[in-house]
């Protein structure tokens, strides 16, 4: 089943700053098939976040074609984009972005609240299920300030999963975490990718994080510099085993 979930052609994004124009993306072409685990790398300012925002339907390209799941995003209205974000995309941010003073379960439920076809009972069941898949079901009543950074990021991943999106987008999701916790997150990502067949686009700075993915795109100054297939991705679970045991996980 080699369906293209993302189809990008000559994508450009320019920011007008007064009289100057910042060209963040200068014509990028690539596509992603269902079930791929893609990492986007590149130095700071190379346009990774700009790219991901467009992929996540938070932003529209200035020029070029972007098709998500066969739909041309550039033709959609604001509300239709919101609907796409709600049903097709799961976001994971560097800063977790959980609602403060709100329990883990309610944080995970949040996307489903904006989907009127899902009732209260189903919402709760699906949120619990998502929390289980990130192994935090026992922490469902905890608020973010009662959770470690790694746990918060796992709650955020559960939130990204709960609407059963066609793809998960992560912008430096391990950027605030230590190596061990980063590996835990990557292990979770690999599991979602391999077991559930989720397509993942993961922006990162670090080559050793990219090593866990099946394909790496490198951006440089708004252009696609390299597109490499990693035929033998490293297993995050095995990498974790090399770390001394702690009882945090």
């Amino acid at each position, binding site marked *: 089943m080699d369906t293209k979930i993302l189809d990008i052609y000559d994508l450009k994004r320019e920011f007008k700053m007064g009289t100057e124009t910042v060209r963040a993306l200068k014509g990028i072409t690539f596509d992603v098939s269902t079930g791929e685990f893609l990492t986007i790398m590149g130095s700071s300012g190379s346009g990774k976040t700009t790219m991901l925002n467009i992929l996540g339907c*938070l932003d529209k390209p200035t020029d070029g074609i972007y098709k998500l799941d066969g739909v041309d995003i550039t033709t959609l209205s604001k509300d239709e984009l919101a609907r796409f974000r709600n049903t097709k995309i799961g976001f994971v941010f560097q800063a977790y972005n959980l*609602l403060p003073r709100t329990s883990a379960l309610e944080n995970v439920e949040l996307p489903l609240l904006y989907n*009127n076809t899902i009732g209260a009972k189903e919402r709760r069941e699906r949120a619990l299920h998502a929390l289980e898949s990130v192994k935090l079901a026992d922490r469902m009543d905890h608020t973010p300030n009662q959770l470690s950074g790694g746990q918060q990021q796992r709650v955020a991943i559960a939130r990204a999963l709960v*609407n059963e999106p066609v793809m998960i987008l992560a912008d430096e999701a391990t950027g605030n975490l230590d190596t061990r916790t980063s590996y835990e997150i990557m292990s979770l990502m690999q599991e979602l990718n391999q077991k559930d067949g989720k397509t993942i686009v993961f922006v990162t700075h670090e080559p050793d994080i990219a090593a866990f993915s099946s394909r790496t795109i490198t951006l440089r100054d708004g252009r696609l510099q390299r597109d490499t297939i990693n035929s033998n991705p490293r297993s995050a679970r095995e990498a974790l085993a090399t770390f001394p045991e702690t009882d945090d996980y």
Partner: protein
Amino acid sequence: MNLVNLIRLAWRALHRNKLRAFLTMLGIIIGVASVITMMSIGEGSKQSIQTSISSMGSNMITIMPSSNTPGVQMAGSNIHSLTLADVKALKKDANYITTISPLASSNGQVIKGALNWSTTIQGASPEYLEIRKLSLKDGIVFSENDVRSSAKVCLLGQTVVDNLFAKGEDPIGKIIRFKKIPLQVIGILVSKGQSNFGQDQDDIIIAPYTTVMKRILATTYIQDIYASATSEAETDKATDEIKTILRETHKIRADQDDDFTIRTMAELIKMLSSTTGMMTTLLTAVAGISLVIGGIGIMNIMYVSVTERTREIGLRMSIGARGVDILMQFLIEAILISITGGVIGVVLGVSSSLIVASVLNWPTVISESSIILSFIVCAFTGVFFGYYPAQKASLLDPIEALRYE
């Protein structure tokens, strides 16, 4: 997001900032409470004025003498333009008048044994009691015969009784002296208490007008004429009729002013209701101002709230909230603040009107319309002042909002 979840969300946001929410509501609370209290006091006094006016006879007409000589202003009691002939003429020709009575009154001291009291004696016909809506609690009214014979009889108000007679003593049949004239008490008036203008309506003696005119005042003029119109609504017709008849009997030329003045209860009612109308307008203005101030408070705090929660808004948008979802979230929060403030205000207003009624003994009437009106105005205030902050939130760019520090 559906309405139930939106309300729950807004409720929780307020719950998290209880003190802030309360302080924001304060303007609305004070506004609504004061409006309800003042309206209940206003309505109460309006109703009590109305009942006391109708107890005085809402169809009552008073004719007083006045000067029609330009440049010469005299006090009414010094003008002698009304006579018994006028009463007779009105009795004969007026169709819109049911009863009529002349009035000749005199102030002076009344003595009974060792006790004395300063009061007013009113000389009138027996119909006077009917016009003024007075009645007897004891004894009988003097008759037409008494009038014809200038009989030395009188009726006493309760205040006069209290000041001249010992407790338990029966005044009926006793003789009192007014300006040395002995009068036999034949009846006692039912107490009417104070009038709206603070007069003691029980401090009177009523006697036949002939008795007062001949024996006490020694005059042929009368001071006032009291009459009852056929109904309150026909007071104006009665007034016109009286005017025509009196101008004829007084032989007043067309270019001359009247030498009498006609006052009606209908006029007084109109005046009082215009006063209450003015008061209502004033209250509405006060209410409007306090609600606007309360509304601005809400607007202010909603802007703060939107700014504080910029990242939250960005996040909600990134997981699929539409602009309208964000708009509703903040709008409902604003409405919830104003309506909660309104509820507290109503409770406070109602209890303070009850307190005013029981402690100060003021008549208060809590009208449902004032409560319903307050609610509607509160909801409107919430929508009006909450809309702009909510719209600002809904128009945020999700990327920028997520990046907001």
